[in-house]
């Protein structure tokens, strides 16, 4: 009941004309940028962050919810029509989606993706509305030791469990943690690793890192390694509407995938990659048209797309209720909060209920805007895909540099951006995951603060982390996540 009242208050905030307008702009911009090939949701959110510099926090965050959903949908369009998944969570969609497009069924593929995203996004938002207050309640009992353990757990799952190689994930994580150290130590005022550069005293902004790794890194990579290849854009022929048969084959996958995607997104072992593949495998198994899989089965688009969206919404649960990001996109959203001096977590629900619930309410609205805006406008989004690549990447860099430069009005940030671009180029080419670096940068300083707070309370006695049951359990799980895969391989080998 309490939740319902809070949510209604949220709607009264989100439905204000000005906030609706920000939501609308957010969805449109998010879709537009998200459609651009090579631009995944994380980069979209990072590039559009400067849009919100001068807005009030509520409006800005509502716009961001719109950008987040728009970016997800835009990404699916590109995945289906270009067979170019912008992020790992779209690979499963690409399997069937691009084949449907080749067979002249791009319309229904995009429709099932859009409507499925709406259905999954809405159900997942309902789940978030119900679950988040419960977690908030539980988290009020958390002390610094528990938070620290939870963050360590998130570090290890993001870097060691996801991705092909534990050690490369850890390399990215530690690079991110190092970058997080740069700047003034929040507890003593001591400058660390700033090399006397004043721009570095504030620390490294997550926007510069994300945009450098994704936008500059990707541009360098594409220019150097694939610019002489040609893309094959599938034309959008025939009806974009789904037949009754398509509906019948789409609805069950949407629903099943929602309940696969949401839990995966919300536990700090997040990432949308695993649930999309689980959903793909499940639909292949359950489908009465199993023979169509690999040739363009609509279930293979409906399921993974819904799972992806549900996981993206699920990722907002730990972000809002605990302040812990479990994906690169969520990490950038966290920095959007921090720009306003807000720290998501249980306290934010108490101190800023209008903002938090306004944001949650706007997610319901964002889903609706997305649906009514995107299906009719799909023709325009397809035209965006036809932008020649030589202009596309130049344009991306114009906006990428804008974001970095607007931080301090200084060329030093642009140099930093280029250095991260080189790093991103190397990581892209030699298969080092990027998300752990971004999460390390944003979560590292928070983890250090909690670590030192816990020790200050215990007067330097490190046993607090192992005597508190929740903390001890989480640290044990974290250790298992790193050592587990290695031990498993050893045992298998005998």
């Amino acid at each position, binding site marked *: 009941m309490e939740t319902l009242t809070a949510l209604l208050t949220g709607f009264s905030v989100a439905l204000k004309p000005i906030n609706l307008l920000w939501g609308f702009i957010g969805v449109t911009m998010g879709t537009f940028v998200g459609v651009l090939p090579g631009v995944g949701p994380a980069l979209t959110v990072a590039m559009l962050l400067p849009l919100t510099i001068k807005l009030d926090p509520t409006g800005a965050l509502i716009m961001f919810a719109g950008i987040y959903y728009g970016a997800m949908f835009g990404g699916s369009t590109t995945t289906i029509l270009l067979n170019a998944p912008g992020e790992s969570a779209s690979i499963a969609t690409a399997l069937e989606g691009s084949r449907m497009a080749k067979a002249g069924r791009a319309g229904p593929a995009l429709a099932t993706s859009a409507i499925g995203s709406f259905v999954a996004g809405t159900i997942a938002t309902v789940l978030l509305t119900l679950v988040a207050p419960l977690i908030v309640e539980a988290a009020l009992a958390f002390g610094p030791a528990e938070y620290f353990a939870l963050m360590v757990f998130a570090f290890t799952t993001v870097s060691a469990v996801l991705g092909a190689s534990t050690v490369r994930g850890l390399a990215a994580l*530690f690079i991110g*943690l190092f970058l997080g150290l740069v700047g003034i130590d929040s507890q003593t005022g001591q400058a*660390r690793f700033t090399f006397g550069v004043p721009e570095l005293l504030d620390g490294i902004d997550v926007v510069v890192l994300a945009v450098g790794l994704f936008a500059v890194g990707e541009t360098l990579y594409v220019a150097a*390694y694939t610019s002489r290849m040609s893309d094959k854009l599938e034309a959008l022929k025939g009806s974009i509407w789904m037949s009754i048969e398509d509906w019948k084959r789409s609805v069950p996958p949407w629903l099943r995938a929602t309940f696969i995607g949401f839990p995966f997104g919300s536990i700090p072992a997040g990432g949308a990659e695993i649930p999309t593949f689980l959903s793909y495998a499940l639909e292949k198994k359950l489908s009465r048209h199993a023979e169509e899989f690999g040739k363009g089965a609509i279930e293979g688009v409906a399921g993974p797309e819904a799972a992806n969206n549900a996981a993206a919404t699920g990722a907002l649960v730990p972000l809002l209720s605990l302040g812990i990001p479990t994906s690169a996109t969520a990490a950038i959203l966290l920095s959007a909060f921090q720009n306003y001096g807000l720290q998501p977590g249980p306290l934010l629900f108490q101190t800023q209920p209008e903002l938090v619930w306004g944001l949650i309410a706007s997610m319901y609205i964002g889903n609706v805007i997305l649906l009514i805006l995107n299906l009719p406008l799909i023709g325009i989004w397809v035209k965006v895909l036809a932008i020649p690549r030589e202009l596309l*990447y130049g344009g991306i860099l*114009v906006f990428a*540099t804008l974001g970095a430069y607007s931080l301090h009005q200084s060329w030093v940030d642009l140099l930093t951006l280029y250095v991260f*671009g080189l790093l991103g180029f190397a990581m892209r080419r030699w298969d080092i995951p990027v998300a752990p670096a971004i999460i390390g940068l944003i979560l590292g300083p928070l983890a250090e603060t909690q670590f030192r707070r816990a020790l200050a*309370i215990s007067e*330097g006695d490190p046993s607090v982390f192992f005597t508190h049951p929740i903390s001890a359990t989480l640290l044990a799980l974290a250790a298992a996540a790193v050592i587990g895969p290695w031990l498993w391989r050893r045992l298998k080998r005998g």
Partner: protein
Amino acid sequence: MRRSAAEIALSAGVLVLGIGVVIGTALLPSEGGYARIGPNFVPGVVGVGLIVVGVWLLYEVFTGGWRDREDDSPEARGEHAFDVGAFVWVTTGLFAHMILIGTAGFVIAGAVLLMCVACGFGSRRWLRDLVIGFVLALGAFLFFVKFLNVNLPGGWLTPLLGVAGT
């Protein structure tokens, strides 16, 4: 074994960064108040972590290469050979932009950036690319400065754009 050169360099880079962090940590003060640990404790942990990961990566390189990577040949990865020219053009664009943005302003710097990148992607229509870059950057400039109140440098075009340059 042709992929090992880059893998050695990257692994060694992580190791060297770790050593650098440990050295940098040694220069930080250690007094810690109630917590008994100071601002140098976590940097030390991160430095040691980087060293361990660097050694681990090197170990993998010399025992058959990094694990679980696709074949490094261009064909398997859907790539062509490294295109130095393209890489240099993109880099040139970014550095030209860095130099120009403070003097010539956001719009001109953006136009030059887009032209250089387009050139890296094989375009030879300099003037068209420059004009497109100019129009795009001008649109972005007006949207951000007039509509969103974000501060961007007008540079040489400040008198024409009718806004205060920074």
